[in-house]
């Protein structure tokens, strides 16, 4: 089984806040596009994170604007992804997370999610 470190509450918010200060990302220099993450809470309206990728530069905002790829999941799932506990693509396959539009962007964006904890030192 994959590693099972705990999900941090607020991991989603922490992840995107850190992404704002991430700086240049060499593994994404060829990528241009926008992703919007719609995080669904039980009662409240979904919260949005808009990420724009351009030549390795990453810009993050809270805008609910059109994007090339729209990713949607509940908060628990995304907290899991954002803390390295859940694998985003596996979550997509089991429909715990959905992606509309250019799903290839999500495949590349995955490089920014934290790795799982090591199962051995």
């Amino acid at each position, binding site marked *: *089984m*994959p*590693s099972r470190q705990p999900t941090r509450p607020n991991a989603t918010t922490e992840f995107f806040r850190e992404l704002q200060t991430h700086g240049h990302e*060499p*593994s994404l*220099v*060829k990528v241009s596009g926008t992703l919007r993450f719609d995080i669904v809470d039980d009662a409240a309206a979904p919260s949005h994170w808009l990420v724009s990728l351009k030549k390795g530069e990453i810009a993050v905002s809270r805008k609910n604007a059109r994007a090339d790829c729209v990713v949607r999941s509940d908060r628990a799932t995304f907290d899991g992804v954002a803390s390295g506990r859940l*694998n985003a*693509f*596996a979550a997509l*396959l*089991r*429909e*715990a997370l*959905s992606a509309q539009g*250019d*799903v*290839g962007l999500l*495949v*590349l964006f*995955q*490089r920014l999610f*934290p*790795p*799982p904890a*090591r*199962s*051995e030192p």
Partner: protein
Amino acid sequence: MSDELVRLLDGNTFVVSDSRGDIEASLTDPTGLFSFDCRYLSKWVLTVNGERLNPLSVDDLQYFEARFFLVPGTGTVYVDAKLSVIRQRAVGGGLHEELTILNHDGQPLALTVKLEAGSDFADLFEVKDALKKKGRYHASVKDGQLLLGYEREALHRLTAISASAPAHVDEHGLTFTVQVEPHGRWTTDIDVVVAAGPGGRQVRPKYARGEKRAQPNMGRSLERWLAEAPRLDCDWEPLHAIYRRSLIDLAALRFSPPIAGGASLPAAGLPWFMTIFGRDSILTSLQTLPFTPELAATTLRMLGDWQGSRVDDFRDEDPGRILHELRYGEMTAFEERPHSPYYGCADATPLFVVLLDEYERWTGDRRLVREFEQEARAALAWIDRYGDLMGNGYISYRRRNEQTGLENQCWKDSWDSISYRDGRLPGFPRATCELQGYAYDAKMRGARLAREVCKDPAFAAELEHQATELKRRFNRDFWVQDGQYFALALDADGKQVDSLTSNNGHLLWSGIVEKSKAKAVVRHLLGPRLFSGWGVRTLAEGEARYNPIGYHVGTVWPFDCSFIAWGLRRYGFKAEAATIAAGILDAAELFHGRLPEAFGGYERGVTKYPVQYPTACSPQAWSTGAPLLLLRTMLGLEPLDGHLIVDPALPDSIGTLALFDIPGRWGHTDAYARGRPELRKGARGRRDGSVRQPVRRAPAAGRRSAAARRSAS
């Protein structure tokens, strides 16, 4: 009937049935309608008046459509039917079936026609391993459609079945009450649509009602695919059939990943391996570059986009590592299998750089190289940082996922494939020799790309220095002095795993062999212990584990031989390359143009015919690619700057060989070769299984200069 399975396929949607067209799968039985690694139909049984039907014949019209001719009754000695049934089927986004009943009698017929349907929604891995399902099934009828469903947490799967003729639909299938006039006919269209996602986001069937002509799902039709490939002309007639078979099978093996925007790459094998594989997709792309270079482009894009970016023990992932296999099924989705994707292979990462360079040499597409420069750098970094598990400067492998990861991460991936002469198996990590060859080649080719495309001469010089150093150490550490060949591997203690194997041929292909050692290696490859007369055995006769029908311990693999022939050409052994090509092509003729994954290592003079290794995977991509690569080695095709060099060496069974409209950075060009006619005369028509010697004379040059060949030193 399971020995006569009929398989139709379009990308990774495929249907496997018996010769009646029926499906009666159990959890362990591999029939059904599959899409994206899920079985959407496990039961699909046609009866007329309660009786099963009897197959008269099956026409495989194309790889994606077939026609079943059936009559009522089974098991009788002879058939005297007053009616016949034609079941025409095509796959694509599901299944489309046109069912026709012909009344041959002067009396009207009243019939009850029933199609029983059911689905177990098994994951492909569950079919292989016979595992139990964890989700919930449902079945319902809505608007005349039968809906079969499966749910597990948020995962939804749906099969929707409908017909054009009036039918009674219940949860077990469709029943038609039919009147057929004297000498008349009755017909209906049946659509099976597969869908995933909440609410069943349905995929429109490819061949909806009224569409009379099935077309495959790919960007190009089969006709265009064949028309756009280079044209072959050869006086050895079987080569035409072999070439055409290869192109058609290659078309069937195309897989269009959902994120590839309609472009396709070669999947590994049909039908169970219709997905992205690092090793298989790369090696097949290398074989087919002179014929269908767009497959290589898609392979590079997909593998580059999916390159590993973190250390993940479950997936055996490292930064820079190229994936082994990607799957879409339920067990992958719930992380009961690591294929999302799984990275456990040690050769795909250096081979990715090899393909990137070879692709640029053929096509001149520098844009793609620049686009994947970061991935190429990360792959090269992986070789030294993560690939070198023992810290001895060699790539080795040991899985970190001990439950569901792969033990052997090289192409010879069966449990007993890596052995010492005396049959003992080494522990892990294992540094197999061909991995070091690929690493050397990746560094040399990476250096060329760095210098010529990326304008980074310092990095190029560093890579060349590393490569030279690797070659020097390798020729010292892997050379088996008392055998005069390269050891299969180094074990965890750095000792030689000293059996003699076909891997030596891959070393020639990669260029890591010092020139002074090449002759001795070639003597082994064409010698009696390794060469069977058809091809090169995976493990030499005389080694403890040698078995002529052992998967990687004695059989002959056509793809292996095609790369060995390429290696022989690289070191200037033209006649020997032609000998290998002749053996494999003769085998291809006897296999009706379609080379199996592997065949027996028996001496050619003993069995006369090559003995097929039993395998569920046919056609297999890199076997399909083998004749194409052999065409390249026989013609001696090498791109050089803006030109294509033609430097042929033909076996004596072939007098003339021409390939027209070879695509590349030169636009399109032709290649001609001529053998020696006086030697050929005696050979024509001779198919007695004896080994023929290839032409030894320096062959006539093609249209282009025969001078330059890539330096082998």
